[in-house]
């Protein structure tokens, strides 16, 4: 098995991490979400990539 070149993989992980962190910070600071906040916290943390994005699209209350 070829050694995995971490320099290549790192950007993928960095993107995931940024999305996760920004989504969580926003979740903490936002006044209200569609549905309970803790559910969104679980979704954001457990579902890779898609979790934070689904939160940004459907979770944030826009009015």
């Amino acid at each position, binding site marked *: 098995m070829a050694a995995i070149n971490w320099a290549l993989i790192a950007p993928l992980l960095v993107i995931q991490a940024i999305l996760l962190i920004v989504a969580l910070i926003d979740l903490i600071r936002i*006044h209200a979400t569609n549905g309970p906040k803790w559910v969104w916290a679980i979704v954001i943390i457990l579902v890779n990539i898609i979790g934070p994005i689904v939160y940004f699209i459907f979770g944030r*209350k*826009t*009015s």
Partner: protein
Amino acid sequence: MITVEHLSKVYGTEKAVADLSFTLEAGTSTALIGPNGAGKTTALSMLTGLLKPTNGSVRMENVQDIRREIGFLPQYPHFYPWLTALEFTEMAAKLNGVPSRHAKKQAESVLDFVGLKNDKFKKTAAFSGGMKQRLGIAQAIVHKPKLLVLDEPVSALDPVGRREMMILLKQLQQQSTILYSTHILNDAEEMTGQLLFLQKGRLVEQGSLKDIRAKFDSFRYKVQFSSKGEALHFASQSPWPTAVEDCDVFIEINENVPTMQQLMSQLIGLPFSIEKVERVTMTLEEIFMKVVGQ
């Protein structure tokens, strides 16, 4: 001066507003009064240009685009939660044609005026109902419109917010033409000015509070006894038609009813203790009910 002529809105077969005509003189305030569902909001929406009338017109002297000269406060104003109060008010000013270099200054000064001086950098997501209502006033007056249209400006507020808003409205009354709707008649009584009674989309009566009182108010005497028994006893002997309510006896005043002297001389001979004698007028609510025939 604003002229509204034969304004109508028909949804299917239902007439939400039917043939509404009135004029608003510059510098006056006018109340659109009616129960929920009378067509107040529909009428105001057409006035502000949000809703296209089925028929009729709204004209303002020497004004082409009426939207330019109107400031509107909906009953429940909704703001973009991600904008601050100042950003929203500044945008509102610019959209109404206030030059960019004045927009911010004008926005700040109206926010100070409505009492949001310390909240202007806050995002509106954090605003309470009363704060939203005040921001609503700010965005409606920021471009110095000729006509201010307010839909139920105080009915959704708690007593404190309501009091503050009434004070604000009375201040605005000094400087602009106002048309507002309400179903709480005490507010209209307090604001004074012209009254328009709306029922089922129709204008059923209009005039100043004084004119309408002169036309519809019936005065009554109220005599208060210390017990109900006394009140009933007096009512049964009284030479005039009466109504008894608890310890109170009401006597309608018309051509063949008494003057205060006659009433007094009648009362003097009684072995009862009389707490109070007064002349009462109808509340605006009672007058409204009388006008619409209920």
